[in-house]
């Protein structure tokens, strides 16, 4: 079933569900006729949509909101923080075309600080599905959970056959290689899995950790990777600051852990817009390009590790 079909089925079975949009119906085109007055389109008014969702939630509803990720999380940020976050209302915020999926829209539409903003709100949880299958697998649990959620909407073609059932706070892990751990979420899983195959052909063993939810996050999987691999790599279509790289940095401090970590993200810049396949190449984010970046970093890290081990063993 698609996201839209699941939402319709759930809403028809549970009158608490209300579907809202700020005139962004791409993912929910068929719902107006099915849901009647429980489909509410407020027009291009993201803040008003979020405030109204709070009012509906005060009356016992579970509003599921749709808007482009950048306008939902930025334009309406203070409404989300103040009207959803402070009272901890069960509102689900679904942001469309996040990260690279804004392809040709340009920087106005690039939601690449959405994870940073949403995870910073107390009580807010974050789901970043890798593709349409993972979105569909995860959405029932998100709707059932009593917390407010931000869903980084992604209904792209399946990146892989997902082998792990969806479980909030638990990553899906591909392989158990101990040279490299590629940690990622959302759309970049597809390229991370390609990178894993390319690295394997070069004799480099790796695991790919598909986080699914960034808050809560699978602390065990990350700390195990830090312990068991030579190099960790974060891959995300997000600003370098505030996203996964920052989350892992915070985790390391909390758990007094240190490990070599290569971040791949947008450092202090937006990405050059264009067709998605060209954007990937231009940004060095195709699986093959990621593999090459990782291979070079691993060589450097192995050299460094050797050097470090000589120092600690008094062989300098």
């Amino acid at each position, binding site marked *: 079933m698609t996201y839209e079909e699941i939402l319709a089925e759930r809403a028809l079975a549970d009158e608490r569900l209300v579907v809202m949009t700020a005139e962004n119906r791409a993912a929910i085109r068929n719902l107006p006729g099915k849901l009647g007055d429980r489909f509410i389109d407020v027009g291009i008014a993201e803040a008003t949509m979020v405030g109204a969702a709070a009012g509906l939630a*005060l009356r016992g509803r579970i509003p599921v909101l749709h808007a482009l990720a950048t306008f939902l999380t930025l334009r309406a940020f203070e409404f989300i923080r103040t009207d959803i976050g402070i009272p901890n209302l069960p509102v689900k915020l679904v942001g469309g075309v996040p990260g690279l999926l804004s392809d040709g829209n340009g920087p106005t539409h690039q939601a690449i600080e959405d994870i940073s903003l949403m995870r910073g709100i107390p009580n807010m949880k974050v789901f970043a599905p890798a593709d349409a299958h993972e979105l569909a697998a995860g959405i029932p649990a998100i709707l059932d959970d009593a917390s407010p959620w931000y869903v980084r909407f992604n209904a792209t073609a399946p990146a892989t056959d997902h082998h792990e059932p969806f479980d909030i706070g638990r990553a899906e892990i591909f392989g158990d290689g101990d040279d490299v751990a590629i940690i990622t979420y959302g759309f970049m899983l597809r390229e991370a899995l390609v990178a894993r195959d390319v690295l394997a052909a070069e004799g480099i063993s790796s695991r790919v950790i598909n986080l699914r939810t960034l808050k809560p996050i699978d602390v065990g999987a990350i700390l195990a990777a830090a312990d068991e691999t030579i190099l960790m790599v974060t891959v995300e279509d997000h600003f370098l600051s505030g996203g996964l790289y920052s989350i892992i940095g915070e985790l390391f401090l909390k758990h007094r852990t240190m490990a070599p970590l290569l971040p791949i993200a947008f450092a202090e810049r937006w990405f050059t817009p264009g067709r998605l396949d060209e954007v990937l190449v231009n940004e060095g984010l195709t699986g093959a390009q990621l593999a090459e970046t990782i291979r070079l970093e691993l060589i450097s890290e192995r050299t460094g590790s050797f050097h470090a081990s000589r120092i600690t063993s008094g062989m300098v």
Partner: protein
Amino acid sequence: MPPFNPDEPWLRQLALSVREHIIRMGTDGGCFIGASLSCADLLVYLYGRHLTISPETTASPDRDYLLLSKGHDVPALYGTFAELGYIDPARLANHLSVRDSIYWHPNRNIPGVEFHSGSLGHLLSVGIGIALDIRMRGGKNRVYVILGDGELNEGTIWEGLQVASALKLDNLIGIVDRNEFQANIRTEELIPLEPLEAKFEAFGWATERIDGHSFSEMEETFSRIPFETSRPTMIIADTIRGKGCPSIERRADRWFVNLTSNDADALLRELHGQAAADLESEILMVR
């Protein structure tokens, strides 16, 4: 219900008692006294006479909802709640204590407070959501949102006005506490609002203008809500900032005041028409 006499002594007395509470909350840390005094009569009328709600029905799905959107006028609400039995009047002495939830902006831990506010431009949209749900469930209750006139600077108010009109929410009522002041400056000297009735009408709201200190005008006007079916209702209530204490009325520098106990006593005497007050208390021009 017996015929309503807007000059009934109990309503006048209720308003006087609420103003006394407001002045007392203006000591030991202070409060936004100007806006609290300007909307006091509106809140006294609404809770004392008009709204379908009581201390026993603050959680009933069939109650009327009142949302204080600007929020910093909350001493008027708490004073009203104390007088009408929503909260123990002794609790008002906890104003600004970390051991209670009574501070400069509403907290919904206090019985009767529907939602927190203080960030301007939020509760019209929250009211839209509540009104939508009431309509979906076929309810007869209504949602009243008290807006500040300075708050009308915020763009989300005008966004919400359009959405409420498009959704034909005739169970939603906006009430502007038109005390003619922004925080520190007259509205017409900073971001002019007039002609305000024409603006609300143009945005699709059935609008009327009343004296926000006249119980008889309130009775006449509120009894006709909604003014039109399928349109939200807007009532512009012309009020006086600091109403009740002439020495602080219509004063740009009496938005937030932290009163000494002597000054509070002087204002209370002035409130009761005994003597004019001459304040020396701390004046906060900008917060």
